[in-house]
């Protein structure tokens, strides 16, 4: 929960470019409004911190936000822009 201690200026990049087991904060979500709405309902929205549980790989990525785990397919992973948080 206390992941907001940014120590250096990390660039924003798409989720699939993060290393495994990294933590990051969502900057923005590209794509159409339906998709943004769908992710928002799940609690995947700009400003929240996530932790990578599995991947990223060809299949996609599994992330954890607070208590919940989500599997996100590869085509969507590229549309989620994040800033990596140093631990």
């Amino acid at each position, binding site marked *: *929960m206390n992941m907001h201690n940014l120590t250096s200026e990390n660039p924003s990049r798409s989720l699939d470019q993060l290393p495994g087991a990294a933590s990051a904060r969502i900057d923005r979500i590209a794509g159409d409004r*339906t*998709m943004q*709405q*769908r*992710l*928002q*309902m*799940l*609690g*995947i*929205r700009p400003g929240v911190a996530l932790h990578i*549980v*599995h991947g990223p*790989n*060809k*299949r*996609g990525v*599994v992330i954890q*936000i*607070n*208590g*919940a*785990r*989500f*599997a*996100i*397919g*590869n*085509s*969507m992973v590229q*549309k989620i822009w994040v800033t990596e948080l140093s631990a």
Partner: protein
Amino acid sequence: MSACHENQGRAAPVLSEQSIVLAGNPNCGKTTVFNLLTGAHQQVGNWPGVTVEKRSGSLQLAKKKVSVIDLPGVYSLMGGGGEDQRVARDFLLDTPVDLIVNIVDASNLERHLALTAELLETGHPMLLIMNMTDEAEARGWKLHCAELENALGIPVVPMVARKNKGRDYLLQRMIEALQKKPQGHPIVYPAPVEEALQTLGTAISGQTTARTRVDALRLLDGSAQPSSEQNAKILKDLRRHIELISDEDPADLVMDRRFSWAHDMAGIALQAHGKKGLREKINHHLDRIVLNEWLGVPIFLLVLYLVFVVSFSGGNIFLDFFDQASAALLIHGTGHLLLLAGLPDWLISVIAGGVGGGLNLVISFIPPIGLTFLFLAFLDDSGYMARAAYAMDRLMRRMGLPGNALVPMVIGFGCNVPAIMGARIIEDPRGRILTVLMQPFMSCSARLTIYMAFAVVFFRSNGGQVVFALYVLGILVALLTAWLLGKTALRGETMPFVMELPPYRLPSFRSVVLQSWQRLKVFIFRVGKVIAVIGLVLFILPGIGWTSQGLRSTDIDHSLLAQGSRALVPIFAPMGIKTDNWPAVSGLVAGAAAKEIVIGTLNGIYQRQNAADLMADYRQPDIIGQLRDALLTIPANALTFVRTLDDPLGLSAMTSTSATEQASGAESATLQAIAAGFTPLSAFAYLVFVLLYVPCASTMGALRREVGWGWMGFSLLYGTGLAWGTSTLIFQAGTFAAHPAASLAWIAGILTSFGLLIIALRIYGRRQEASPAASVKKQAAA
């Protein structure tokens, strides 16, 4: 919106019975709470399982009957999600209820509370269940229910529904809430939003204040469209005004307020306490294996394989007992009693042989089918299915399908009808049509009875493998169909995969047993009813036929049924059905209405052919002896089960023609007749036909409802054509050596027809693309 008034009008007279509705996000344990509250007092709709339609049950509260409604999981009342979420949303917004019981997952509180914020706005009395408190504690959090109760203004009940913890306290608080009707403290939005809600509220008059507020909110955040030009203008002005003074989009303002509210409430309810527990670690390690890039798909196939092989072999231990004991009681016992009562011979044959024999066949399949349901319910509750969907996503995507299409497919193993409805969880229309059209090929439990009957005769030592092979063939044909249609008639993009992975849970014994019992009950009653009736009809039908003097009673070989079926035999000859095996054709014709009937039909005919033997049995039954023998089959079969555990898997016995093997275990007349009419190869071809052709009238009805007449018609013709083609291919390839020229002609013909079908679909797809795609492009350009 006008439905609201109608509903209120209609609901008023029945309000003497109070109603409680369960609402919550998917995976919050709603159905578990529902089962806990209503127990056996449920009106099971079509099929329990993944809830895509509302279900109701009843409960005794303070000596009064209260109805309980279970809704599909919903993330938000504002919009989004599949058809299943729309069902829940419409119900919550439009139906007057006495109490909304909102269930939230305590281990994932903040997100679940976002829905609570919306529910509070509906103005219904509410109660909050903090479910799965054990998981929150395992994550190292401490719960403060009293504080949350103060902040929300509604009762808060901690529970672990899966372990039956907190039920009594819940009942007590529900009685209280039904009297006091606590409505809680809804969110207060920033001033400009509140002002806009006021203005919009007066514009969209009518209904209750709470409902008006919800409608105004939905207009403001863009999840509903204004009903009139005038309102559209008001809304536009208000939006601009808010953007001017706050420099933010009104939809974002509303959302931000809700999320920060949920964040604050979660902060009040949970406080970090010790360390993360063991459960978190187990979750993590299991996911590393199950989600592994290379192991994911093989693990899923292995799990399915084990479900069917263990169900079949385990079921085999009890199959003979169920078969012989029910035969002793229902056929011989009933026959003897009726004989004592002095009924005529023909009537005894109809009741004991026809109805009793039909029921006997259904009953003998209860062990394997019950075990299959038990394992599937276990998988459903364990949290594995969502992982399997993710693991299969890439493969499914190559077939043009979203990964969550896997969920309806697995439901389809039980019954195709709920599977077709289950496709509602898929959001994009193209993926949904593809998924719906796949379902008829998923091998349902009714088809399992036919496999079982044949497997018992021909494939006794490796029945599990044969049945598994048929299931896999069904999956392959389903995937191939989706791929083919996705490449030809229904081209387009697949929606990206996003799915919540619930934590692994050891399913509660109670929930798994209840769920599989409900499925089994539906199976037994539906199948039993149909088979009993058909058994009766088919006991009479083969008794009459056209003779030179017109319609007269004849022996079965000259009956109408025989004449009709014989006329159809040539169509089925290429897949190995011989003329004297016309009852097999009768079975298929009847099976187009319901697959359950196939075995019932065969039973009706074969029993009649053997009626004479049975009459002797009725005169001198040895029921006690038969029951004792039946009981003795359990240890004997258990021993076989243990011995064959190390037996390497193989499909070799499928082509073996050993007569001894055929006869082994064929106790009843029907099974013996099956043994005589088929070879193992033609039996397998017959089963493939049964797997692939028209599933049943109910499935056709569901198809029409979900995708319309056109696609239903396509599914019917395509399925039947494919069934015939595939079975013929199998039989001709298997007997190739005996008549190479004829086999080659059949095979070439089938492959050519398939090629023509692909071309026709492609042309259809191009035409479809030409019309709507053009308009989309125009829109993009504009």
